[in-house]
């Protein structure tokens, strides 16, 4: 067993971990960095794993950074090792190889926990059958890709971001796809009824069966232990040879818990507690991404925001701060961007108008194009654009800067709306490059 000491130890080799490496180096720090992941592969773009199934992205396109990344950033990668036994007194973790190899102990000055999420698996019999899988790792997507020749009918449980993306990918590759969702609409946390219905239509037009207000009650297999069919709440039965479980992710916090790093309550999602500087309750220990809470610039509160930009920027800011800078992460909110079968949709902040005083919504719906803005006292608090997404970022910027829209509210949803319509001083600022991360 070898012991090694690093100035910076990063657990997680994904958005958060890579953001941290880049933050540390951006701050000019030359200290030693180790990156640990129990996934035995080069850093990859997790949100693209369903595209690997669809076939519009190949393995080369999965790399999140060039192959020489670790070398050029002076990082020692430990890929294929699970970090455990976090000891904050000794400032060390043990690395357990996931497929053979030597054990290590790593000591550190500063630690980033970017351990991401784990799929939520409902307590239900039959989920251990062959052909039943979550969809959050490269390995799981390669496994499904390898089965495509043998899969005729697929069922996807859950119509959130992961479920919808999986259903879209499978629709390109297998004979029939059914998506089963308990809520009364798909993508419910990031849509309103109108935009959700539009997205649903694009699924249905492309041959995906969308079943709402229902769920799977029983998963049944054949004599050889392979998934054969699912029975829904209403008693109907869907035959299938692939079942993807995509009803959500939960923060992966074992490592933090072992070390006694504070979590927020389960009621708030149970992630690692952090402040806007990405510091945890433990000195010199930072956290970001799907495993941690984050500041939401719309609500002003801390919450789980399991999204790629939040993880990357959170990691980058953690890295800057670990290297001695003083930055805050105020770039995150519930923001989503998708495209299903050529139907684009983005949303951010509140997608439904809160039933409270001062809130209003303005809507434009023409043909296949829909846009809705939620305002509070003329400050944008939420946005949905469906069927067209051009210049969506201008609204997001106004939302983040809490710009009063009173003087240009009439123009907000016109076709031409652009930076030119903003009050002079806002306009001049937005025309300039962004030079500060905050």
């Amino acid at each position, binding site marked *: 067993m070898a012991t090694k000491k690093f100035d910076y130890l990063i657990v997680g080799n994904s958005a958060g971990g890579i953001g941290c490496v880049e933050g540390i180096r951006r701050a000019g720090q030359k200290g030693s960095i180790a990156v640990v992941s129990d996934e035995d592969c080069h850093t990859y*773009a997790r*949100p*693209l794993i369903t595209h690997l199934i669809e076939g519009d992205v190949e393995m080369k396109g999965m790399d999140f950074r060039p192959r020489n990344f670790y070398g050029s950033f002076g990082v020692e990668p430990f890929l294929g090792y699970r970090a455990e036994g976090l000891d904050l007194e000794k400032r060390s973790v043990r690395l357990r190889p996931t497929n053979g190899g030597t054990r290590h102990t790593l000591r550190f000055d500063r630690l980033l926990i970017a351990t991401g999420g784990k799929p939520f698996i409902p307590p239900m019999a039959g989920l251990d059958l062959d052909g039943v899988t979550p969809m959050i790792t490269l390995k799981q997507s390669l496994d499904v890709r390898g089965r495509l020749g043998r899969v005729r009918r697929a069922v996807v449980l859950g119509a959130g971001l992961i479920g919808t993306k999986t259903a879209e990918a499978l629709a390109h590759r297998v004979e029939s796809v059914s998506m089963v969702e308990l809520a009364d609409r798909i993508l419910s946390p990031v849509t309103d009824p109108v935009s959700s219905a539009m997205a649903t239509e694009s699924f249905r037009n492309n041959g995906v069966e969308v079943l709402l207000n229902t769920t799977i009650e029983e998963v049944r297999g054949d004599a050889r232990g392979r998934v054969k069919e699912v029975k829904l709440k209403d008693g109907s039965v869907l035959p299938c040879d692939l079942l993807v479980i995509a009803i959500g992710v939960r923060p992966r916090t074992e490592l933090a818990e072992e070390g006694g790093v504070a979590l927020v309550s389960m009621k708030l999602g149970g992630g690692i507690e952090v402040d806007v500087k990405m510091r945890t309750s433990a000195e010199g220990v930072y956290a970001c991404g799907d495993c941690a809470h984050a500041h939401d610039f719309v609500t002003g509160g801390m919450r789980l925001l399991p999204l790629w930009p939040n993880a990357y920027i959170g990691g980058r800011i953690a890295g800057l701060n670990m290297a001695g800078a003083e930055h805050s992460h105020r*770039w995150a909110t519930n923001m989503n961007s998708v*495209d299903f079968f050529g139907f684009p949709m983005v949303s951010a902040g509140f997608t439904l108008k809160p039933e409270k005083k001062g809130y209003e919504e303005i809507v434009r719906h023409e043909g296949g194009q829909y846009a809705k803005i939620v305002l509070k006292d003329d400050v944008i608090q939420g946005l949905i654009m469906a069927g067209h*997404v051009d210049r969506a970022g*201008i609204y*997001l910027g106004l939302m983040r800067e809490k710009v009063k829209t009173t003087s240009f509210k009439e123009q907000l949803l016109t076709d031409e709306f652009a*930076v030119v319509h903003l009050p002079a001083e806002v306009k001049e600022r937005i025309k300039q490059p*962004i030079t500060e991360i905050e």
Partner: protein
Amino acid sequence: MKRIYAKEDVCIGCHLCEIHCQVEHSSSRNIIKTFKTEQPPPPRIMVQEEGPVSFALQCRHCPEPYCAYACIAGAIYQDQATGEVIQDREKCIGCWTCVLSCTKGAIRPDVRGPRKAAKCDLCPGREVPACVEMCPNDALYILEEDP
């Protein structure tokens, strides 16, 4: 860092910068073919008008590029030597996260073929970007800034 700025007082909103941007990023690079026989690419610069005010705006190549930080594919990065914010078109999957992230509205969808985001690339291979060179009023100019 090379950055393109617009002079509001001489921009008349003629949209020629958009046209020449489209030609420059077309497959033929020929103005007639681009608009007559090809599907023209979306302009990566946008002329905006409100009453007498008009100017063109394109990617600012931000030193803190939110689009690059948000890109779920690792397709946008900052060139360490030049500071330019570069998009690897091969890697782009057209998810529009960058479109939602750019507070200037300077990245747009290109849906002519496989979905791709399109943004100003400062015309690689050209001494002077097409929009700057072709503006009849010299309303666009290049500033060397640090960073």
